[in-house]
């Protein structure tokens, strides 16, 4: 494909697949969580918010270590894997998805939570006075009004998953074709002195990161203009 050697192309494919699945799963998980964090008056919600944010400050090796234990044969991950006859979720693509969800969660939850909080109570009160049930108000008012935040969250989640290295190495094991993604492939190329290949992937990542950040800035500007 594209004239690239398969040990470059396969990690790229795997990375995109991982990031896409992770981002979609995160939107499903993080949106209700962000809604609850933005709206709840429970005192302990900030404790939950802090736990969700831990991956921002924890060294990826620490996160990876505990995930490895949880996903391993003696953890809940092993129990889940036994449902289909496997021994463990560690060193599998599924394990990689779970690890990416955890490590990218704060980057998705935070912008969505901020967007929900910025809407305030008023539009939801208006919706209620117009006979909209809380469910309908969420889908037809809160979600569309928070859509810039959802988009930001999705882009950040995708980009962060693509860029994750430590966690992926710890729980994925860098197995070619199964858990070797771009970031770990670069590491491998450097270890084996394949500078040219490493440069190709690394340069691609730089261009990708630049494109992501630029498009986010432009999108935010456009949203701000549209709502002015």
């Amino acid at each position, binding site marked *: 494909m594209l004239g690239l050697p398969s040990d470059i192309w396969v990690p790229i494919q795997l990375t995109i697949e991982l990031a896409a699945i992770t981002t979609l799963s995160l939107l499903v998980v993080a949106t209700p969580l962000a809604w609850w964090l933005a709206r709840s008056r429970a005192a302990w919600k900030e404790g939950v918010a802090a736990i969700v944010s831990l991956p921002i400050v924890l060294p990826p090796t620490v996160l990876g270590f505990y995930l490895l234990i949880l996903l391993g044969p003696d953890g809940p991950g092993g129990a889940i894997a036994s449902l289909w006859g496997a021994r463990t979720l560690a060193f599998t693509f599924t394990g990689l998805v779970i690890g990416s969800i955890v490590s990218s969660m704060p980057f998705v939850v935070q912008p969505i939570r901020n967007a929900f909080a910025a809407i305030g109570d*008023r*539009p939801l*009160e*208006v*919706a*209620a*006075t*117009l*006979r*909209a*049930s*809380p469910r309908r*108000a969420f889908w*037809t*008012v809160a979600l*569309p*009004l928070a*859509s810039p935040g959802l988009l930001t969250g999705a882009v950040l989640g995708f980009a962060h998953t693509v860029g994750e290295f430590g966690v992926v190495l710890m729980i994925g094991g860098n197995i070619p074709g199964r858990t070797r993604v771009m970031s770990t492939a670069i590491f491998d190329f450097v270890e084996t002195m394949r500078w040219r290949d490493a440069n190709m992937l690394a340069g691609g990542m730089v261009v990708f990161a630049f494109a992501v950040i630029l498009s986010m800035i432009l999108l935010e500007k456009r949203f701000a203009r*549209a*709502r*002015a």
Partner: protein
Amino acid sequence: MTDGETIRAAFKGTLGKFSLDAGFTAPAKGVTALFGPSGCGKTTVLRCIAGLLRLPDGLCVVGGDVWQDRDGAFLPTHKRPLGYVFQEASLFAHLSVRRNLMFGAPHSEGDAGRGRIAFDEVVELLSITALLDRAPGKLSGGERQRVAIGRALLSQPKLLLMDEPLSALDRATKGEILPFLERLRDRLSLPIVYITHAIAEVERLADQIVLMDKGRVIGAGPLDELQSDPALPLAIARDAAVTLDGVIEKHDSGYGLLTLSVGGGSLIVPAPKASTGEHRRVRVIAGDVSLAREPPGLSSILNVLPARIVSATPVEADEIIAVLALGADGSGARLLSRLTRKSWEQLRLAEGTSVYAQVKAVALAPGRGELG
């Protein structure tokens, strides 16, 4: 009045440092103004009626339907057939004007029928036809508020709640919206609870008034009764006035004057042409009413009405507020007159005295001293 014809609301509780203990019963028709200074708890009462705020010790029965009672019944806001117009228009920024208007409209066409407020009617009533496909962000303040009113109406409410819908607007825009509110009141048979701290809006719109102060209701009843009650703050205010409902008797097109029949007399009022039999509100400011013991001779004052002094209340140091009842027998509408103690003593006026109340016609011109 039976429950089916009234709005009964009573709420008691504390919110932070503020304590509320307010209740009133009003007819479920026309405009009921909740009037009082800022911070007196008007908005809190309105939010309680809407169910946006839940005070456990609350009662709310609208047209016989229990929305909240003290036994724990509480209908959530979205199940109450009400419309709510907030101080700021609060349109949905992500929807066009048309989709904002349709947001609360019932989907099933089966609801069509008697008493239903039609889309075209609302759009015409509020003059928003040209705005339908615009985004809310592109509208002026007055346009936005009109759309918000239309949106509330199209949800087919049985009660419309309005929380100072004009207060966020500038003076000119207020003047632009008020006629729409008057048309709304006159054309739709929809009870409205209207919050304001501007007496001019009360005088233009209200049929009943609930006076509030510091979380309590200090008076409730028909507007003209409360305006002429010297025990309440309205009558003794510097800008006190009464609002009379008059029926047009005739129109003198040569001079541009209407003759309005009010209880116990008739008033000559400058006004553009209007047909006889129509109702017209006229606002008579206490300071514009002078008193005479004898019918005056040649005078420029067109309105001279026999009346009787019902009560007199000293205000400030040297002024008196006199409540008058129109008609030689004192059985007609109430009027206020504010005069100096000197005049009062020189004319040897007292409660029960028969007098002639005089008001210059130009003092009754529409729009005078309004919307301050």
